[in-house]
């Protein structure tokens, strides 16, 4: 079952920035790239649980603010040689609003 939730207007998420969405005690980082693509991942670095939303966005990656692991926003995987992956969520933008697909 599709479970799309409206989270924010696109302009409320800065380009090359992020916002935190809190649902059922899970924080999801919602990221906006320079070309306005939106990605959402579990807001926890596979390394030591750092809040990825607070990192620096570049290309389609995020550098974790705690120890600079580089995590792909596309598939949640850590850049080699680091090993780890964080969960990804589907997103879409409609009429200027960002939607997030929650898992059941």
């Amino acid at each position, binding site marked *: 079952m599709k479970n799309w*939730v409206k*989270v*924010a207007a696109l302009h*409320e998420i*800065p*380009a*090359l*920035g992020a*916002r*935190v*969405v*809190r*649902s059922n005690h899970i*924080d999801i980082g*919602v990221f906006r790239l*320079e070309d306005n693509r939106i990605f959402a991942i579990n807001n926890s670095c596979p390394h*030591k*649980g*750092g*809040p990825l939303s*607070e*990192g*620096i*966005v*570049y*290309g389609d990656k995020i*550098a974790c*603010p*705690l*120890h*600079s692991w*580089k995590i792909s926003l596309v598939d949640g995987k850590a850049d080699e*040689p680091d090993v780890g992956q964080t969960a990804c969520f589907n997103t879409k933008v409609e009429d200027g609003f960002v939607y*997030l697909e*929650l898992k059941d």
Partner: protein
Amino acid sequence: MKLVVVGNGMAGMRTVEELLKIAPELYDITVFGDEPYPNYNRIMLSPVLANEQTIDDIILNTREWYAEHHITLHTSARINRIDRKSRVVYAEDGTSAEYDRLLLATGSKPFIPSIPGKDLEGVLGYRDIKDTNDMIAAAKIYRHAVVVGGGLLGLEAANGLSIQGMDVTVIHRNEWLLEKQLDKTAGIMLQKSLEAKGLKFHLSTNTEKIIGDESGRVKGVYFKEGFELPADLLVLAVGIRPNFALAESAGIHCDKGVVVNDTMQTFDPRVYAVGECVAHRGISYGLVAPLFEMAKVCANHLANYGIGLYKGSVTSTKLKVTGIDLFSAGDFTGDEETEEIVLHDSVGGVYKKLIIKNDKIVGGVLYGDTTDGSWYFQMLRDGKPIHEIRDHLMFGPSAIGDTGHQGQSQASLMTNEMEVCGCNGVCKGTIVKAIQDQGLFTIDDVKKQTKAGSSCGSCVGLVEQILASTLGGGYAPPSTSKAVCGCTEKNHEEVRAEIRTHKYLNIPDAMRGIGWSTPNGCATCRPALNYYLLSTWPHEAKDDPQSRFINERVHANIQKDGTYSVIPRMYGGVTTPDQLRKIADVADKYAVPMVKVTGGQRIDLLGVKKEDLVNMWSDLDMPSGYAYGKSIRTVKTCVGSEFCRFGTQNSTQMGIDIEKAFDHMWAPHKVKFAVSGCPRNCAESGIKDVGIIGVDSGWEIYVGGNGGIKTEAAQFLCKVKTHDEVLEYSGAFIQVYREEARYLDRTVHWIERVGLEYVKQRILEDAEGRKDAYERLLYALQDAVDPWAERVKNREKYKEFEIIAI
């Protein structure tokens, strides 16, 4: 497109690896190698011969790796013809392959002098796995080995054969060993210690002919000096030559090597060449570091990126000959125009010689203690004037104050279990194993794979020593290219200059104008660019919060659990009962888990949730303490003349005035001040970026101190009389640092690079320039707003602090 690589060795495959990193889909790749093995680590042949490693250990790319990357690999296939017209290469075994781009990486081959008898059985060069296996096999049956050539390769062969149980004699034409790397003194020291290990030497000796027995195997060797030696195995190690016969036969221009330009392109635009087979600006390299630099440049051009030039390498040699540490670089002989500084302890087995010309190191030899080799080499390449440190140059950079690795400064004295990197808990054994198993060659590789040295960086020197002693002759220090990061070829100074010349005022314009290779940089270059823009064009350049590290974006210090710490300003470390009450109330209201006094005399509220920050600032109603930024942090003060019975000056007031004058100041890194009221120096001015000490007749100003990773005592800059002069001189100093240091340089690093004399010239000798610099600082700080008050006032503009609940 089709890429064919001729040569399945370290240079060729490194180029392929670099290419796969940046353009994995661009080519169908076919690799030809004339050996029956996949790419292996040629440097590690000596450890194999010395029974320290096996062939399997030294394979760099397994056959599975080639398959995984869809690379067609032909082993035991020697290419003997290139048809450049139809763009096909042909191998001896009949295999052929078409190419759009061809990469030649045919390496080098041992130079075999034309001595009668050189083709006898049992006469070998020393170059590949086959030679190594032949030597190991011979050592099982035979007794007498003669190695012709007392260079690096010859000594490694001799050492290995001796460990394999043979009786080994080394023949060398020169008066002393390793004359290309060592001067006579060091050469003789080396010979003595090798003799103590059982090797025999005949120097100034020339081979006349090799004689064989009836079966055609070597049995002895005659010398021009009129004597002979028995030999069941004879290793010819008199040098290597670039292997360019294939290129030459295809009509590609060669001159003692395949001639390439700075993009590694040969005279045929479709054909590139890298590695030992190349002659670049007339030079062929036999060390691994230059090969890797070439590989990077070549891959970039093969990927059609078209940026990056190889401009040649300055090389140094750090050798491990049977556990004896040697280092040499540049001109280590000298002439009538050079000076030398020598330290020679023949009993302790230590010899150091540096050659100086025009106040710069131009070369040197270290024997027995090579700890400081990379430090000297860095100065050599940077062309750094040495007169300021000449008196203690021989003793290396002071190791005093290094923390985090048990006071060790010599990796060779450490056991495998000892911790090298105190930040990430990495032991020596782990690093050695990673270098051997994963085929690592550079500090960056080691940092990436093991994490050692990747956090605070204090152990990088040790890591480098471990890398050097594990790789032996294959190690060469990293290039000095100080590119800001992988997104640009430009170094920090070039980027700053372009920002000034072209008046770039925002990051996208700067990246476009300067030629960034990535669309929006990375987490390394964006904060640097942002700082350079703001410091060059205050009030005009646009600050980009997304290019700031989180702490500076939210004006609080992120902690391990994602909470923040809040430290309000208390100018000069002076507070009031009212402030303390307010802080206590706020701590109660927000259930702050820890309240702590900081090293900089402030109060730290730890464990605050991001969404509480703005409310807390509002309740505190105190300015931000900037304890989170590359900015002015604190001015630490002692009690001073107001209360202290020893105080000569009012240090607290001076501290408060400095902190107010320079409040809100961003810098390349954090900036700490201290003011003490007398030479007892209770505010610890000696380890601050700017340390001020009150004396009866005025104020002394010290600069470039640091109490962090490596404790550095501040150096005396000048003495001034008045309060206003303290502000002007220290402000001008900080402004020049702000305008000229590299991002993330503390003042100590900057001074180390430019020299204290330069700083004195700018601040003391050039009075006009000092006043201007001070004015520029005051202008930059004009109308600065407190970031906490601003966010309290305009909450709706700072959505970042709100969590979206769903």
